[in-house]
């Protein structure tokens, strides 16, 4: 393992200290329990929004804290969900009296820890609602399983709900907006390499130079299927087909697209992927109205990408375009 680390145990903390130092104008970092919080929190009368998850997905979630997006983010250990005391402390720190929304990615650990936190906050008299994001089309959905994972749509939901809260929507309305985003967003990911969890010291799975994993999540879990590496055009077609037929996205739809790098894929390749995807959407009569191309929800040093499509209407698009000022996403300011 080769990484820029001092001591593995201190990695998360020292990285948070870097965030605090680099973005002191936007966020503060609280330690023990760890959370990143908006510099001006709590904002009186505004619904507050919190998310959280394992570390190793940067810039998600800490990079999305700031005006127009999250009020706080709770980073767990690498790929491990944060603990209830973090979410409880963060919720109390951002509650401006209008209630707090927890945006939770659908992983058993995240769900259970956020559930325990919500119970603690409600006992303390804070109104808390949770929306679970489960947008990963690689996972078959079923009532009898843990369901689909929460992946790329989380980023779009955090941006859009942040805008809804900022314009003064109440908690019930922000919850509705979040559910609407989740209902209309779909993601699929693929990996060219594994990633190395620092504390484990070696790659999570072995994969040869001629293979790829299709349908991966964001924790180095193996995907649904391993297959021979193909030209990017064919890979994007394969991913797009699954995504498009799932919602389904139809001719005439307007979509926000995110082509996301898993951490170790050059932007040059991500733009190539975007180009292939754009051609596919054009051919199907689907209009890409906004796009993000870059590293937003990563998996440490994994090479690969994910594609997210979110079908939008006027309301979602207006919220998307609203100003946002965070370390990792910034426009309109």
């Amino acid at each position, binding site marked *: 393992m080769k990484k820029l680390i001092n001591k593995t145990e201190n990695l998360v903390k020292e990285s948070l200290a870097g965030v605090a130092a680099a973005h002191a104008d936007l966020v503060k970092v609280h330690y023990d*329990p760890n959370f990143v919080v908006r510099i001006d929190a709590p904002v009186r009368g505004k619904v507050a929004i919190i998310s959280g998850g*394992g570390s190793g997905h940067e810039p998600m979630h800490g990079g999305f804290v700031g005006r127009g997006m999250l009020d706080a983010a709770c980073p*767990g*250990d*690498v*790929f*491990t*969900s*944060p*603990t*209830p*005391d973090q979410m409880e402390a963060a919720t109390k720190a951002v509650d401006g009296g209008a209630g707090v929304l927890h945006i939770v990615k659908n*992983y*058993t*650990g995240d769900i*259970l*820890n956020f*559930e*325990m936190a919500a119970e603690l906050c409600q006992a303390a008299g804070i109104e808390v609602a949770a929306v679970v994001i489960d947008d*990963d089309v*690689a*996972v*078959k959905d079923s009532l*009898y*399983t*843990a369901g689909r*994972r929460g992946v790329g749509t989380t980023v779009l939901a955090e941006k859009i709900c942040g805008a809804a809260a900022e314009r003064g929507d109440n908690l019930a309305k922000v919850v509705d907006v979040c559910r609407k985003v989740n209902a209309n967003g779909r993601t699929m990911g693929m990996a060219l390499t594994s990633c190395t*969890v620092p*504390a*484990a010291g070696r790659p*999570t*799975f072995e994969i040869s130079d001629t293979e790829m994993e299709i349908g991966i*999540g964001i*924790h*180095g*879990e*193996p995907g*649904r299927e391993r297959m021979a590496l193909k030209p990017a055009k064919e890979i994007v077609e394969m991913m797009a087909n699954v995504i498009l037929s799932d919602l389904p996205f139809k001719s005439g739809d307007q979509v926000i697209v995110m082509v996301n790098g898993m951490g170790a894929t050059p932007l040059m390749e991500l733009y190539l992927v975007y180009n292939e995807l754009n051609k596919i959407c054009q051919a199907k009569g689907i209009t890409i109205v906004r796009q993000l191309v870059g590293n937003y929800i990563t998996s440490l040093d994994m090479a690969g990408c994910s594609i997210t499509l979110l079908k939008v209407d006027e309301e979602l698009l207006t919220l998307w375009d609203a100003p946002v000022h965070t370390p990792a996403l910034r426009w309109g300011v």
Partner: protein
Amino acid sequence: MVNQESLVAWIEALQEVYAENKEYLTQLDSAIGDADHGINLDRGFTAVRRKLSETKCEDMSAVLKTASMTLISSVGGASGPLYGTFFLRASAVCANKTELAEADIVAMVEAGLEGILHRGKARPNDKTMVDALTPAVNAMKQALAAGSGVKEILEKGVEAAEQGMTDTIPMLAKKGRASYLGERSIGHQDPGATSSYLMLKTAANLWN
């Protein structure tokens, strides 16, 4: 005789067992999860051991409650709230007791398992820790009914947990991260079932 000292000794031993098995459990988790189960438990039980050495627990129940709260706030992942709930329910069984009789030990593990079922909503054959603990509780109850002593009850429990653990290998995961793999989860032993087996085995090695 199982008393407060035995509980503390068990938890201290668990810290050592999970430290020794950190790599192994993480290895199991990298096949069907996210390569952190051993790391999570090692971190959690190290924190519990430190906490217990700093805290004056007034009774058995307090020992297990301290363990529970510390696990909940240090493990994370699915196993944090699940094992945290296990110890919380177990601590309730020890309330107002200074010693645990055979029936209390069985009741403690059973209450812990019920807590895990309540929190995680898994069922037998979902390929989780429940698949090690359920047969263990059943075997312990049988041994109790047959009039066995502490040592034998625990040994029967461990035997059943070990079988339950290896029985997870051919299972298709329906809960937790492993479920995302679908068919590919088949052929691998569940890390949580393995750590649950180790938990009982550690008790069986110490208590009699």
